[in-house]
């Protein structure tokens, strides 16, 4: 049977020779050649031409193979479209003629190469795991090599690099596929790694950069003032050789260039934070300093100005004006400067570190003497339009669009390579995916790729033995946002599994309601629930004083860690159509709207009390919230409710529940009929009821449950008294007395607390003040002791 890879070709032989000589052999040949050449000259001069000629021959014997190795063998250009003609020297050199060509043997030959290690490290798998999963079936190698060819073509690489073959082996093996799936690695991740590797291997060599040479700036003026107040991005790039790769040819950069080519005097670079405004300008600076643009802009230098530095050097407003005008004049006179105002809003606003230079900028831009780039957010652009229409009108807007997922991942990969070098860490590919996912979910105020990069940088401090993995990213977001992002840890998983027990420590009965809610929360935490909607949404229905609010508080305490993680709104205060704006206020008019509260506290229970009393417009808003997991404030910014648990409560149908439970019916038996009643009576629209994850019915408390409620309340009093080292105990008769006095069929257990306050807390307070109760005492109160 003929082998897939022909290892008998001249190219394959050259590859093996290339490996045999290697870099060390090349150096030995060069040094030997040089020594022979030097000896030839020396002996030629002293001992005659015979030695000169013989040693010159020796020098050539060393030099010629060295030249061959350097220019041909080390790179081995492709010789055709067949496998042997395209496989890289690293692959051909490692495969031995006569070997059985199948995935296992090929992997064994390639697995020590750095490109194979690149895959293993970033996928967090060992070479033994791969070896164990690859087949010994020669036919499977064909499929792997087919993948490798595809990856090479995808990367526009005429050479099939060793990394592409490794990726092919991983992708083609059914066993490996299964292993990768268990490790939550998708085929797309392996391909992405191959492309990441391809970008570095295929693009880097042979790319030369020129920055204009010795006389580049001789026709342009000096810029001493700009050197003092600004930061010359172009010279920084020329000095440190920073390269922005594909960003230099991105739409945004080309649009700025085109605007200046079309004689725009100023460009407004518009985009939200994190979208890459500064990076785009730096990439433009790279294009300019490398002379890659048209003659109008060639070798222009981008100088960034900082509002804080300028204000720090100005004692009065007049000084600011003077400095700004001097800077603009100097830039205009120099003739090769583009002024870049990063965070341009700092030049339009009042406040610390900011000043209003809009009039000065207007005059500079009107003069068209120096090209200017102003970077600003869309909101700031709108504000500028409203405040200084003539200035905004002079700016040519260039809108930066958020990158699609593939683009963001590419930026993350390139960033990760830099971070790995700088911090001496290894960043697993799962960490990049997690940074993308979690920053998208939890960082609403910034755009990609900035927010994902920021999260990845934060994750480095959570590295484990210099390894940054998905857990590191989860820890970073948990620390910065106080969110539970990771998979449930063993202890926490245990707590979730026993959620009902934890809730019942503070709630009496309502077992059905607690179970329904606990199941929904477990689904959300295990990642089974829809991530684009709130964690959970519940409609609590039942009479007053049966524990609806208490269950909401218990959820806040159990799931979010504290009862205070609750945003509570009484919907009876939102009965007018115009109340919608109060809910959605961005804080300019209404100080504490629903939106503002959730923005401040995104991980909380949102409790909407007496939902049936709200205006229909507000209920429509609730539909959107439950559907999309987000609302838009009056300023146009979206706020995510995806990390909230939405609980609406209502007393609607309370009498029905009371009556039917009184007749001995279970809640489950009449829930469907009850729901129909609510819809038919017009109290709730079916589309709203359908949006809730669960409708939870609460039944009235029974007398024995009320006894337990009193016991819980006494336990709370004891917690308070613990500071004074006093313990309180009620006899069964005393408890019974409180139950009788505090029980109201219409108000449930609600009056109980008032009765307990009057009867127990007042009595205890009097005893303490009279000195009848001292630290270390145990107070036992009987029914006659209680004055109600």
């Amino acid at each position: 049977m003929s082998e897939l890879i022909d290892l008998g070709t001249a190219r394959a032989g050259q590859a093996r020779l290339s490996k045999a000589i290697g870099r060390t052999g090349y150096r030995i040949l060069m040094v030997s050649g040089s020594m022979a050449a030097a000896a030839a000259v020396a002996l030629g001069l002293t001992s005659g031409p015979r030695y000169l000629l013989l040693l010159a021959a020796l020098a050539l014997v060393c030099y010629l193979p060295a030249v061959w190795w350097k220019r041909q063998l080390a790179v081995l250009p492709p010789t055709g479209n067949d496998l042997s003609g395209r496989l890289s020297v690293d692959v051909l050199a490692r495969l031995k003629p006569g070997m059985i060509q199948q995935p296992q043997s090929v992997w064994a030959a390639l697995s020590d190469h750095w490109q194979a290690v690149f895959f293993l490290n970033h996928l967090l798998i060992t070479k033994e795991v791969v070896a164990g999963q690859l087949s010994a079936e020669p036919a499977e190698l064909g499929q792997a090599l087919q993948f490798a060819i595809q990856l090479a073509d995808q990367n526009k690489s005429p050479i099939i690099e060793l990394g592409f073959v490794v990726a092919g082996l991983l992708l083609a093996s059914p066993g490996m596929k299964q292993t990768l799936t268990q490790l939550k690695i998708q085929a797309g991740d392996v391909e992405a790694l191959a492309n990441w590797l391809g970008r570095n291997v295929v693009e880097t060599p042979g790319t030369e950069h020129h920055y204009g040479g010795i006389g580049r700036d001789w026709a342009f003026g000096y810029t001493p003032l700009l050197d003092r107040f600004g930061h010359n991005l172009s010279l920084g790039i020329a000095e440190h050789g920073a390269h922005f790769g594909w960003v230099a040819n991105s739409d945004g950069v080309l649009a700025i260039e085109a605007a200046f080519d079309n004689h725009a005097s100023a460009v407004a670079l518009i985009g939200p934070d994190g979208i890459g405004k500064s990076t785009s300008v730096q990439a433009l600076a790279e294009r300019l300093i490398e002379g890659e643009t048209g003659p109008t802009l060639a070798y222009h230098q981008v100088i960034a100005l900082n509002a804080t530095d300028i204000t720090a050097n100005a004692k009065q407003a007049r000084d600011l004006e003077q400095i700004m005008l001097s800077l603009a004049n100097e830039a205009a006179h120099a003739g090769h400067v583009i002024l870049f105002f990063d965070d341009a809003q700092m030049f339009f606003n009042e406040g610390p570190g900011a000043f209003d230079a809009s009039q000065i900028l207007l005059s500079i831009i009107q003069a068209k003497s120096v090209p200017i780039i102003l970077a600003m957010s869309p909101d700031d652009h709108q504000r500028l339009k409203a405040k200084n229409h003539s200035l905004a009108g002079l700016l040519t807007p260039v809108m930066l669009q958020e990158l699609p997922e593939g683009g963001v991942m590419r930026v993350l990969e390139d960033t990760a390579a830099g971070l790995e070098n700088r911090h001496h860490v290894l960043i697993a590919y799962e960490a990049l995916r997690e940074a993308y996912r979690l920053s998208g979910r939890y960082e609403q105020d910034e755009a990609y790729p900035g927010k994902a990069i920021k999260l990845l940088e934060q994750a480095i401090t959570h590295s484990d033995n210099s390894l940054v993995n998905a857990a590191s990213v989860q820890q970073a977001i948990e620390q910065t946002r106080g969110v539970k992002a990771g998979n449930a840890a063993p202890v926490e998983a245990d707590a979730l599994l026993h959620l009902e027990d934890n809730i019942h420590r503070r709630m009496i009965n309502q077992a059905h309601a607690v179970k329904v809610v606990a199941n929904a929360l477990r689904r959300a935490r295990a990642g089974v629930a829809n991530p684009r909607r709130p964690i959970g949404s519940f409609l609590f229905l039942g009479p007053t004083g049966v524990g609806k609010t208490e269950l909401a508080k218990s959820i806040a305490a159990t799931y979010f860690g504290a009862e205070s993680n609750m945003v509570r709104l009484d919907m009876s205060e939102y009965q007018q159509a115009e109340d919608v704006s109060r809910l959605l206020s961005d804080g300019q008019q209404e100080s504490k709207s629903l939106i503002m509260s959730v923005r401040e506290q995104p991980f909380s229970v949102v409790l909407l009390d007496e939902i049936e009393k709200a205006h229909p417009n507000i209920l429509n808003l609730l539909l959107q919230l439950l559907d999309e997991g987000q609302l838009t404030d009056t300023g146009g910014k979206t706020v995510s409710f995806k990390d909230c648990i939405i609980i609406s409560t209502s007393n609607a149908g309370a009498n029905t529940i009371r009556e039917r439970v009184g007749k001995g019916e279970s809640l489950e038996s009449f829930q469907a009929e009850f729901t129909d009643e609510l819809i038919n009576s017009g109290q709730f629209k079916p589309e709203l009821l359908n949006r809730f994850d669960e409708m939870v019915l609460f039944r009235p408390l029974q007398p024995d449950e009320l006894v337990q409620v009193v016991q819980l309340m006494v336990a709370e009093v004891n917690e308070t008294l613990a500071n004074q080292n006093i313990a309180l105990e009620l006899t069964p008769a005393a408890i019974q007395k409180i139950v009788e006095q505090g029980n109201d069929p219409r108000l449930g257990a609600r009056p109980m607390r008032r009765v307990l306050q009057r009867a127990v807390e007042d009595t205890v307070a009097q005893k303490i003040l009279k000195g009848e109760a001292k630290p270390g005492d145990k107070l036992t109160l009987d029914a006659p002791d209680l004055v109600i």
Partner: protein
Amino acid sequence: MAMLILSFFSWWYGRGWQQVARGFGPRLRGVMNAFSVRQLLRTLFAPWRRIITYPGASLEDRFRAWGDNLFSRVIGLVVRLFVLFAAAVTLALVALLNAAELVIWPLLPVAIPGCIVAGLII
């Protein structure tokens, strides 16, 4: 082994020789870039670092400004011509070396037995 030796000679007199010839252009371009030849030619008569005097209203002021600016241009011209001359010399040297390499290249493999034979005979 024979195949490898054959590969060496086929590369040396084929692609290797082509590489030497193709190396001509990039090397010359490198020299031109390093000396900013295009920039200097384009701005040959421009004032040196834009050090110029803006003319006043009076005739005398105008005349003085014209003189100052002419001086700046002359300085610029002299410096640029000097650098262009240096660039021309370097280009000539590089071209010469390249041409020499191109001519000598095919002789080098033959030179090995030649040197040995000549050395043994002498």
